[in-house]
């Protein structure tokens, strides 16, 4: 079920079109720091319950339960404290650390994962990427990559769910070359039946040079109306 969900999200991503009027889904931002702080999206109580359930019985789909096993084992019970406030404090601390790095511009080289022409690529400043697709931009045009899935630096990563806000991240690329690939042959042969066919094809490709991958705002500052930044009405 989880695998299906995963594939659904991926397929929706390639059909995703960002429209200015509808607001984007609330993008929760997962920040990490090199220390042991890892933010969980769900409350810790849910995680605790899940852990207990899995400890009590490894429940796979085809498993058959022995009646005697079920009644003889006592369910383990642990009392866990509510660590919600602690979690919030940790969250705020990490966001402050990230924001301070952004303000002082001390994060260094940033890399981003872009969804472009049906494929995801990991990209930094000065990269050359090849895209096998035809698109209306001309050589020398500057393109802005809108579907940014992840932004990382040495000390933190920002993960989009599934995309990052456009007013937070900016990835720009220039079209360097637009041409056709080398000739590829498609040869079909049915042996001993005297049927064969030769087909040649070349498809469009373009090479983009990534100009910049940069952060353009602080992590927790969200605009009042989302999905409107940079749009022309």
């Amino acid at each position, binding site marked *: 079920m*989880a*695998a299906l*969900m*995963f594939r659904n*999200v*991926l397929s929706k*991503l390639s059909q995703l079109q960002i429209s200015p009027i509808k607001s984007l889904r609330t993008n929760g931002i*997962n920040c*990490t720091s*090199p220390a042991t702080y*890892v933010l969980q*999206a769900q409350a810790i109580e849910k995680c605790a319950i899940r852990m207990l359930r899995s400890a009590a019985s490894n429940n796979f789909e085809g498993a058959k339960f022995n009646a005697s096993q079920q009644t003889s084992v006592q369910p383990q019970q642990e009392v866990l404290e509510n660590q919600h406030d602690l979690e919030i404090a940790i969250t705020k601390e990490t966001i402050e650390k990230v924001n301070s790095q952004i303000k002082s511009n001390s994060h260094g080289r940033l*890399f981003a*994962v872009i*969804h472009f022409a049906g*494929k*995801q*690529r*990991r990209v930094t400043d000065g990269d050359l990427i090849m895209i096998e697709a035809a698109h209306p931009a001309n050589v020398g045009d500057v393109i802005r990559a809108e579907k940014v*899935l*992840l932004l*990382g630096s*040495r000390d933190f*990563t920002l*993960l*989009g*769910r*599934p995309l990052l806000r456009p007013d937070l991240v900016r990835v720009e690329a220039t079209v360097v070359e637009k041409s056709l690939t080398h000739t590829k*042959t*498609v*040869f*079909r*042969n049915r*042996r001993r039946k005297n049927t*064969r066919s030769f087909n040649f094809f070349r498809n469009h490709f373009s090479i983009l040079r990534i100009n910049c991958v940069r952060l353009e705002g602080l992590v927790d500052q969200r605009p009042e109306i989302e999905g409107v930044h940079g749009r022309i009405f």
Partner: protein
Amino acid sequence: MLITRVVCNRATKPDNFWKRRRVFKLTAHYYGRKRNCYSIAIKYLHRALAYVRKSRQLKKRDAIELWQQRISAGCRELGSSYEVLVRGMARCQIALDKKTLANLAIWEPRTFSSH
């Protein structure tokens, strides 16, 4: 002007040299008679061209398998497994595909461990 009788003959047989030359150019790196003798070379050439077509799909399949193995290895280094990672990502609606995950596992270990 002397006008001769029209010769109603079919065109002569085309020269085989050029047809075979097209084949030998492609089989120049084969071993033995496969590169020099036409009737042997043509069989292996057809096979090779069919493999070219088939391998375009196989390459993608192999790459996916490789990425999956690499992600799984990276996960196990950190104590979890590939299935756990994928399930967690689906729940959090993180849509990174296998290629980028494998890339991150190799070149950005800190990002990968934060997943």
